C-alpha cells in the first residue's frame, strides 16, 4: 500500500462557494433556467393578466365589469362551474366504488381495475368526443338499441351532458389513482387498533377510514375539476361554445388578440385552476403527514362473498365498457365506411388509414419532432432543477422548483394566448414570420406545460439517490461536475428516461395551446390534425384513424415509462444497501 505515495488531487482553480454548496456552473444553470421560465411562462401569463386589468393607460376593473354585464359570459361561467362539478360527481360515482373494491376485497377484478386506471388516460378526451357521439348520441348505437327495445332515449350527449360524460369517462382515473393510493397507505394496524378499541362498522369508517382517505380523494377531485375547466377541444368538438374556455378561444381568434374579454376569461381560468391545483397539493401534503408512520399494506382485505362478487363484477364490467367505449368508437369509426343512424358502421375499410398515411405524414413527423424537443428540454431542465433544489443551497432554488411546478396550474389555452400576445410582435429574420407562430414555439410551449411531469420524475429519482453516494465520490477526490457525470446521472438515468417518455406522450396529445399557436397546416402536429379532420363529417374517418395512431403512440410510451420505472425500482431494491 505504501510503495508509491499517492499525490493529492491536482489543484485546479475552480472556485467553490461553500456557503451555497455550489459552483459557478450551478449558478449559470440556475440563471439559464430562470431566464427560460421567465420568458416562456411568467411573462406570457403575466401579460394575459396584465391586459385584463389594463385600459390602455392604467389599472382598470372595467373589463371585469363588462364580463359580469355580458349575459353570455355569465352563462358560460356558470356552465363551466356546473360542468366541472358534475364531472367530479360522475367521475366519483365511477371511481370511488372501484377504489374501494381494490383495497377491500381479495379477488381478480382488482387487476381489471388497475388497467381501468390507465386506459382512459392514453386517449385525449377530444379524440373520443366524436366517437362518443356515435355511440351515445341522440342517434347513436346505444340510443338506437334503447329505442328499438324500450321506446325511449337517454340524452347522454345533449349539450353540456356530452361534455360532462366525455370528461368524466376520461378523467375518473385521477380520482381512482389518488384515492387508491390513500387507501393503500392506511396501515391495517390503524384499522385494527380502532377495532381493538371497540370501533366497528360505520364508526370505524367515519372516524378512521374516511378521514385518512379524504386527502387522496380531494386531491384527485380537484385535479379533475382543473382539467375540465382547462379543456378547450372537447366542448368545441361537441359544438358547445357557451363555456369559458371556448369563449376565450373564440374571442381571441375571431375578434383578435386585442380584445380584452379573452384576457379576462383567461385570468379567471388561471385563478380557478391555481386554486384547484393548490387545493389538491394541500390535500396531498396532509396525506403524507397522516400516513408518515410507515406505509402499511393497506386495509385488511377479506374474501368476497358470492353476491358481492356478482355485484362487483357487474359494476367493474360496466365501468370497463364505459371507459373503453371511446376507444371502441374511435376504432370503429377509423375502419368504418359510413356510420350514421345505425348501431354499427355500414361496412368496413382500411381506406382511412391509407388516406392518413398519404396526407397526414407531416402531422406525425411534426409531432415527433416537437415532442422530442419538448421532452428533451424537460428532462434537461427537470434534472437540473431537481439537482439545484436538493443538492445545493443556492438562494432561490426552491422558488425555481415551485415556479416550474406551477406550470401545472396554467391552462394551455392561457399559455397559448400569453405566448401569442408576448411574441406576436417579434418578427423573425428573413421574413420567416412572427416568433409566436414559429414552429419551435410549439415545442417550447409543450416543454413549459409538461415540465412538471419531468421535474417530478427527476426529483423522485434524485430523492432515492442517497446523498452519501455523492459525498463518497467527493471524498475520494471527485469534483462536483465529475460526481455529477459519473455518479448522479448514471443512477438517475431511469427517472430521467421515464420523465422523457411521460413528457413526450402527454405533449403528443396537447391541443389547447396548439390550437392557438398553429397557423399553417404544414407546421401542425397530430393533435391539430385530428381536430381539423374531425370537424367535417367527411374527415371523421381519417380523423379517427389519426386518433388511433395517437392512442397507440401514447399507449406504447406510457407502457415504456412504466417498464422503465419498474425496472429502476427493482434494481434499487436488489442493491440491498442500508440506505
Amino acid at each position, binding site marked *: *500500500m505504501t510503495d508509491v505515495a499517492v499525490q493529492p*488531487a491536482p489543484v485546479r482553480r475552480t472556485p467553490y462557494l461553500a456557503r451555497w454548496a455550489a459552483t459557478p456552473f450551478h449558478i449559470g444553470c440556475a440563471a439559464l433556467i430562470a431566464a427560460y421560465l421567465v420568458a416562456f411562462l411568467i411573462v406570457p401569463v403575466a401579460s394575459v393578466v396584465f391586459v385584463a386589468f389594463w385600459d390602455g393607460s392604467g389599472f382598470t376593473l372595467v373589463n371585469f365589469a363588462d364580463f359580469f354585464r355580458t349575459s353570455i359570459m355569465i352563462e358560460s361561467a356558470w356552465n363551466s362551474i356546473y360542468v366541472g362539478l358534475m364531472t367530479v360527481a360522475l367521475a366519483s360515482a365511477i371511481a370511488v366504488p372501484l377504489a374501494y373494491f381494490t383495497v377491500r376485497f381479495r379477488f381478480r377484478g382488482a387487476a381489471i381495475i388497475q388497467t381501468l386506471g390507465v386506459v382512459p388516460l392514453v386517449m385525449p378526451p377530444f379524440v373520443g368526443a366524436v366517437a362518443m357521439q356515435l355511440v351515445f348520441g341522440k342517434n347513436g348505437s346505444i340510443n338506437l338499441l334503447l329505442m328499438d327495445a324500450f321506446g325511449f332515449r337517454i340524452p347522454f350527449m345533449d349539450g353540456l351532458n356530452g361534455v360532462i360524460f366525455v370528461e368524466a369517462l376520461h378523467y375518473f382515473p385521477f380520482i381512482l389513482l389518488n384515492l387508491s393510493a390513500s387507501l393503500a397507505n392506511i396501515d391495517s394496524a390503524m384499522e385494527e387498533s380502532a377495532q381493538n378499541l371497540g370501533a366497528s362498522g360505520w364508526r370505524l369508517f367515519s372516524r378512521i377510514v374516511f378521514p385518512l382517505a379524504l386527502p387522496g380523494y380531494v386531491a384527485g377531485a380537484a385535479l379533475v375539476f382543473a382539467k375540465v375547466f382547462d379543456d378547450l377541444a372537447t366542448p368545441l368538438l361537441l359544438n358547445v361554445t357557451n363555456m369559458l374556455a371556448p369563449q376565450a378561444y373564440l374571442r381571441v381568434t375571431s375578434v383578435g388578440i386585442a380584445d380584452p374579454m379573452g384576457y379576462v376569461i383567461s385570468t379567471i381560468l388561471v385563478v380557478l385552476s391555481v386554486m384547484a391545483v393548490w387545493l389538491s397539493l394541500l390535500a396531498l401534503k396532509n396525506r403524507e403527514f397522516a400516513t408518515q408512520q410507515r406505509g402499511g399494506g393497506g386495509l385488511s382485505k377479506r374474501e368476497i362473498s358470492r353476491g358481492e362478487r356478482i355485484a362487483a363484477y357487474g359494476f367493474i364490467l360496466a365501468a370497463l365498457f364505459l371507459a373503453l367505449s371511446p376507444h371502441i368508437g374511435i376504432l370503429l369509426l377509423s375502419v368504418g365506411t359510413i356510420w350514421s343512424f345505425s348501431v354499427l358502421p355500414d361496412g368496413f375499410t382500411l381506406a382511412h388509414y391509407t388516406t392518413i398515411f398519404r396526407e397526414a405524414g407531416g402531422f406525425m413527423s411534426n409531432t415527433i419532432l416537437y415532442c422530442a424537443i419538448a421532452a428533451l428540454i424537460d428532462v434537461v431542465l427537470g434534472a437540473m432543477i431537481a439537482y439545484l433544489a436538493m443538492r445545493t443551497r443556492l438562494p432561490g432554488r426552491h422558488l425555481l422548483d415551485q415556479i416550474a411546478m406551477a406550470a401545472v396550474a396554467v391552462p394551455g389555452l392561457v399559455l397559448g394566448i400569453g405566448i401569442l400576445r408576448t411574441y406576436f410582435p417579434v418578427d423573425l429574420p428573413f421574413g420567416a414570420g412572427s416568433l409566436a407562430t414559429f414552429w419551435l414555439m410549439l415545442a417550447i410551449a409543450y416543454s413549459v406545460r409538461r415540465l412538471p411531469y419531468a421535474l417530478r420524475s427527476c426529483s423522485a429519482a434524485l430523492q432515492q439517490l442517497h446523498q452519501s453516494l455523492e459525498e*463518497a465520490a467527493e471524498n475520494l477526490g471527485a469534483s462536483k461536475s465529475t460526481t455529477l457525470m459519473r455518479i448522479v446521472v448514471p*443512477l438517475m438515468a431511469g427517472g430521467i428516461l421515464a420523465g422523457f417518455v411521460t413528457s413526450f406522450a402527454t405533449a403528443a396529445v396537447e391541443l389547447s395551446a396548439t390550437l392557438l399557436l398553429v397557423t399553417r397546416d404544414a407546421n401542425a402536429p397530430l393533435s391539430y390534425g385530428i381536430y381539423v379532420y374531425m370537424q367535417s363529417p367527411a374527415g371523421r374517418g381519417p380523423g379517427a384513424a389519426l386518433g388511433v395512431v395517437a392512442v397507440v403512440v401514447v399507449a406504447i410510451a406510457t407502457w415504456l415509462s412504466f417498464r422503465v420505472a419498474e425496472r429502476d425500482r427493482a434494481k434499487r431494491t436488489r*442493491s*440491498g444497501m442500508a440506505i
Partner: protein
Amino acid sequence: MSGVEIERVSFGYGGAPILDDVSLNVAKGEFFAFLGPSGSGKTTLLRLVAGFGMPSSGTIRVGARDVTLVPPWKRNVGMVFQSYALWPHMTVEANVAFGLEQRGLPRAEIGGKVRRGLELVGLSQLAERRPAQLSGGQQQRVALARTLVVEPEVLLLDEPLSNLDAKLRVEMRHEISALQRKLGLTTIYVTHDQEEANSVADRIAVLDGGRIQQVGTPVELYDRPANRFVATFLGTANILEGHVTGRQFQSGGISIPDIDRADGPAAMAFRPQDAQIAPPDGPGFGGTIARREFLGGTIRYSIAAGTHMIVVDVPHHRNASALEIGTPVSVMIEPARFVTLAG
C-alpha cells in the same frame, strides 16, 4: 500522514447550535474515537473534518494545512460512510479504482493498487461483483478498501459496524484495529457504543449535546470521569450530591467521613464494584437490600440508603450465598475510590 486539529469549531443549521465550541487534537498515527449518544453531533463533527458543511466559526487543520475552506474533493481525508455508500452501478473493482482515477494515476498503477487494496481486506475473489451481490460485511470491506487505496492523510469511520450483526461486529472491530496499527494511519472512529470505543481507541472524546465532555484514554475516562454525564455514559456509577463540612460528606441521609476536600457543595461518584457490603453496624453507612439482579459474574444489589438507591456489585462464584431482599447491611467505600465530579 498527519494529525487533525479542531479549534473552537461551532456549527448549526440555523436553529440551536449542533456543535458548540469544539476543540480537539488528534495526534499523528493515533486511533481516536468520538463517543456519544445518538444526536450528540459526532457525525456532524466528522463530516466537518471531511469538508461536508462549513463551521460557522473555528478552524480545522489536517497536518499543518488549514482546510476549513477547502472543498471535500481537495482534502485527501478518507471517509467510510455509515451506509457504505458503494455505487450500485459499478463493480467492486470500479468502486475501489474510482479515487485513484480521480488522482490521475496511470492505468497500470491503478490496477496494482486496487488488487493490493482488495487483498488487504481479503476480497480479491469478488472484484467483478456488484455491491448488491455482497453481504453487509463484504460491503463494509469494499468501502474500507476504496478509502484505503487512495492513502488518505486521515481515515474517518462513521459507525462502521452499526449495520453488521453482533458476531461480525466484534470480528471487524479487531480487524480494523489491526489494519490501523499495520498502516499507522491517523484514524477517527465514530461510535455510540462505549465497549467498541474502549476496545479500539487510543483516546476517546466523549460528546453530548454538541459539546466535548471529556477527552482521555479509555481507562482515564472510566476511572476519572470529569462529570456526571461521562460517569454514567461509560458504565454504571453511583452519584451522590451533597456538602462537605469538616472532611465529612453529607448527602440525603448518607454520611461519609475522611473526605479530602474543602468545605462546600460537592458531587461524589463511585463504581458499583468499588463498594463493599458488610454486616450492619460495620464501618460505612447503613442501608437495606431493595433489589437483587443476577448478572452472571456478579450480583448487583440495589441498596436503599437514606434517600439514595446505591448500586453495588459483588463478585459471584459457585456456592456463594446471596443476600435476601430486606436484609440490613452497611456499605463501605475506600476514600481513594471516590471521584469528585465537576457538573
